[in-house]
């Protein structure tokens, strides 16, 4: 599903060159729920951004669902993200002018799905996460946990091949965090959804099938929990 080979990412900050990743290679299979962990500055978000086509590696190669992403131009990368990937961000990032329902179906609309179809899909997924009674609410009428669940619904509505989550529980209390992680786990189990999630909370590991730990831009541990 995901093959990363010798990924390097450096940032030229003028006088200083920052090596965020120093040659990371990994393979992720379909249906895996992967946790990328590590201390602040270890390169975990950089890795997620590269795998999620939000950034380009300085060196190395990424293959997503059989596609060498280096061959894609910017427009094709945008279409790839729209059609085949899903994202959940730390601060939910809902569009403030849109209602819950509109936030969820926006990307379906752009994909050209018919109105009847995307409305049905939206209702179905919001019902699944327990927010079908909040269709017409705006983001500021929801709690942080609810907003993050809407963001998950938005990411899932197009049934992406890979779901990327960048510290989705960072702004949530432990109860809301657990609800969100339960939801990820449920999606992963029931839909065989591949999920790659960045986290810095140790207790989150109980939800992951596999944990990759980074330090100073290198993988120092990669293994199944049972390992």
């Amino acid at each position, binding site marked *: 599903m995901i093959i990363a080979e010798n990924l390097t990412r450096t940032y030229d900050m003028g006088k200083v060159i920052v090596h965020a990743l120093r040659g990371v290679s990994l393979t992720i299979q379909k249906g895996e729920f992967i946790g990328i962990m590590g201390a602040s500055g270890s390169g975990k978000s950089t890795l997620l*951004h590269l795998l*999620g086509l*939000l*950034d380009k590696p300085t060196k190395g190669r990424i293959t997503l669902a059989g596609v060498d992403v280096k061959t894609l131009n910017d*427009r094709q990368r*945008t*279409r*790839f*993200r*729209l*059609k085949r*990937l899903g*994202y959940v*961000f730390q601060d939910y*990032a809902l*569009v*403030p*002018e*849109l209602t819950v329902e*509109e936030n969820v179906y*926006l*990307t379906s*609309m*752009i994909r*050209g799905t018919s109105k009847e179809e995307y409305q049905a899909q939206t209702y179905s997924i919001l019902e699944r996460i327990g927010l079908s009674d909040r269709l017409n609410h*705006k983001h500021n009428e929801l709690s942080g946990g609810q907003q993050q669940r809407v963001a998950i619904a*938005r990411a899932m509505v197009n049934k992406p091949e890979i779901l990327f989550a960048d510290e989705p529980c960072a702004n949530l209390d432990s109860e809301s965090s657990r609800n969100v992680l339960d939801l990820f786990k449920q999606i992963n189990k029931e839909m065989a959804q591949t999920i790659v999630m960045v986290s810095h909370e140790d207790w989150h590991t109980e939800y992951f099938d596999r944990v990759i730990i980074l330090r100073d831009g290198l993988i120092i541990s990669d293994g199944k929990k049972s390992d």
Partner: protein
Amino acid sequence: MLLDLRVSFFLAIRGILRGSRGSLYLTILIIAMVFTNMIFMPSIILGFIKVAEDQIITYQTGNILISPHEDEAYIEDAFALQEKINRIPGVLRASVHYSTGVTLRYKGNTLGSNLVAINPDDERLVTDVYQKMSDGYYLADGENDEIIIGIQTSGHKDESLDMGATLGYLKAGDPVTVEYTNGISKVYHVKGIIETGSYYADQGAYITWDELESVYGRDMDLATDMIVRTDPDAYEPDVKTQIYRFGIREKVQTWQDLLEEAMGRAVQNFAMLNSITIIVSLIIAVVVLFIVIMIKTLNSRRQIGVLKALGVEKNIIIHNYVFQVLIMTTLGVIVGTTLVESMVAILTVYPFQFPDGEVTPVVAISDLINNTIMLYIVAFIAGYIPAWRVASEDILTAMRS
């Protein structure tokens, strides 16, 4: 493409309906004011020109003025020519004028003036001066010893209304002495005072053709000019061509030619003033819309980054803001048009009072269309540039903002 525009429009409508109401109303108001400014100034200028046109046609020259050939001082065989002109299709009536410089005296006041001899029955069919008697009556054919005088020569009761030297409040029934250039001096009975609002008409003095002949002691078949009223449906330049086709060698000018001669420079200056007003208005519109969209996009940088991360194309994001600007411009134009029309309605009832007459704004549809198009073009540019700048940032830079 159509789908992308639909999504942009969807985002734009939501952005406008659920964004800041205060900012929206203020922006629409500013666009409305800019639009009003762009329309109102030319409408006043057009109103001025309309007054000048009306006055030229109604009180001075009719639709067409025939004057002597440039090598001659008079039109000869004036009445034969008048008959000829009257037979030309599109001509309603021609009226013969004989103008001469005279000196008027009344109660110690002396004033040089232009005295015009007319045939009142013809003149009534060509100009509307006979309807503008503020005191007394208009002349009748065959009358002798009677004169009518314009208010700017006779003088107002309230001297502050006089625009120059006058005879000092001369009224109908008063005697006035007229001294001709041939040495004849004669006392006339003032039959009426003219007050048209046209400075040209209100400055003159008029006697009948019979009176002129009695003063000169012979039949007069000479004219200094001839004014022509055309059929309301006739197009003056066509009638002018017809007149020339009848073999007339005198100089023939339509009122448009005369207006161009008299006010061409003024109209050019008005047009320049108008262009400056429009340019300043458009700059204000560009700056306001640019700032509004710049603030909107800068405040939404992270959101724009997130949308791009989710797979929303840059063009959808840019067009969203362009649509917002165009919607605000449309609302501004609607409010502006309503404002302009309201002002025109009020000023039609209570027109501006100017020495040359009452000026009512005249809104030309072409001005409305041209200025609306210009406003849309600048709005498009003002919306596109800031949206393009922010939407062109790379995803992570925008998301980290």
